[in-house]
């Protein structure tokens, strides 16, 4: 049995577009659930999505617990042994309060990769496979969120390239979610049920393509 941790934000949590963190797609509809079904019995899929989660930043408004870096360590240790860690974050870092360019968000992604490599929660204390997933770009119309996310849609379109550069230089797997799904027009930055299904399937194929030797 192999284990994969899906570490993300509201789009991993399964938040319904236009809803609140309490409006969630069902476990089987969210992309980790779809991916679990696609991967089949050989895989244990762990969902870890928190609405508002950033890569490395304490959120002065929503709270320090939104910091993806501080929570990553206990999370990895809770769920070890992990064969694969998938990280899809970055959108919340683009909030106006953080004032960060896309390249800094990518640097922060790199921090998370280093933390995983340091902690070695893989089999026998090894470094697990790591996959950076760039979130689908935000739409231009983000409704009532336009002041919180001022300037973010433009930056969100740069995340895929910046993340790929980081993934390449740190030699980890990379997937651009924007290549298979778009955000829902209801709020412009969450993905709907159909997109969850597409993303779950696409990521299952990516996970399989990594190539896994038979388990002893």
């Amino acid at each position, binding site marked *: 049995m192999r284990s994969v941790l899906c570490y993300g934000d509201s789009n991993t949590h399964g938040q319904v577009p236009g809803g609140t963190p309490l409006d969630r797609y069902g476990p089987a509809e969210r992309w980790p659930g779809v991916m679990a079904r696609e991967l089949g019995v050989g895989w244990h899929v762990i969902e870890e999505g928190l609405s508002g989660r950033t890569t490395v930043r304490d959120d002065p408004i929503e709270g320090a617990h939104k910091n993806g870096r501080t929570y990553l360590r206990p999370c990895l240790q809770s769920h070890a042994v992990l064969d694969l860690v998938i990280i899809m974050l970055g959108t919340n870092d683009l909030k106006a309060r953080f004032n960060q360019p896309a390249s800094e968000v*990518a640097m922060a992604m790199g921090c998370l990769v280093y933390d995983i490599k340091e902690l070695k929660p893989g089999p026998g204390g090894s470094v697990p*496979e790591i996959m950076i997933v760039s979130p689908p770009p935000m739409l231009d119309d983000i409704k009532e969120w336009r002041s919180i996310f001022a300037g973010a849609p433009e930056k969100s379109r740069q995340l895929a390239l910046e993340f790929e*550069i980081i993934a390449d230089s*740190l030699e*980890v797997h*990379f997937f651009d979610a924007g290549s298979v799904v778009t955000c829902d027009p209801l709020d412009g930055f969450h993905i709907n049920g159909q997109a969850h299904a597409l993303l779950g399937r696409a990521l299952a*194929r990516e996970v*399989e*393509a990594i190539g896994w030797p038979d388990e002893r």
Partner: protein
Amino acid sequence: MPDMRFAPPNPLRIADRASGLNAVSVRSYNERLVLSLLLQSKDITRLEIGERTGLSAQTVSVIVRSLEQEGLIAKGEAQRGRVGPPTVPLSLNPEGAYSVGISVGHRQVEVVLVDFVGSIRSHAVLPFSAAAQDTNHPQFMSAIAKAIADLPQHLHSRIAGIGLALPGDEVELELTPKAARERFDALQEEVEREIGYPVYVQNDITAAAGGESMFGVAKHLSDYLFFYLGARLHSRLVLNHQIYNTTGAVSFDVGILRLEQEITRQGRQTSELWERGADWPSFGEAEIAWQRELVGQMKSSIAALKQFVPITSVVLSSYAPQAVCKAICRELEQAMPGIAAIAGNIERSPKAVGAAGLPFSSRFMVE
């Protein structure tokens, strides 16, 4: 001292997202390793690449993604096995790179354009004697230009370069038109200047051996004795995929020139002998006698080599019809039990196709 982990990322691989091929300097050893493996075996998975190169899954993932973006490799249809997850096979993309190969013989010049897996996309033969005596122009340059022009304009940025196979055999050089030898020396620079692609030069027999090992029957052979049947019989030793290129290698007068003499003595026409891609008519007694002599020479070369190297495979390459080569191989196998003799399958212009492999091996493959 800053924490170098957080220095600016190194976006080397994907720095150049423009279409066309990346500069030579950014092609890492590991990328070459993966490309070489894919040249040898098509339809292999990332898992197999990792197992056969010793690279980690993450490194393979990064390399495969960048080569895919560059168009050098392509994914096949996912294969669903009876057990386990579906697998996605990877292969070189034939359209990913092109190369021009030129071989200069004593009678004619051949120019080919090949794709990344060695398929001939365009082929031209120029009679050498018709070329002007003291210059390589203008037919020669225009044949190269035409090979390139045969490729649609938008693919020109995918031409890796031009390979030039030059004769090194003293006896064959004697047969070339007057002053040709001096002209050969200047060819590399002239082609580079006039056509504008980098030119890679190699001895023609070594190039032919390289062609069979990159694209032909010798792909999976690591150790073998390579014979090239041209005007004369030439040979090269290949050990551990390495072709031994010796200057002043001996050749034997049991080649097609010898056959021509035999046929002429019987008062028959010989022009078919030098044509490319055409079947030979039966030359009767003359051919039988010649073949016996040729096989005898191959036999003694192999026997001499076997004192030092336990060679069991022989590859015979030639522009002569494959049926002729196969008959020679059969004869040789009968005469030498324990030897597997294989006729090369680069039928048209093995030297020129081998020359076309030079830019590929120099830019994309490990030595």
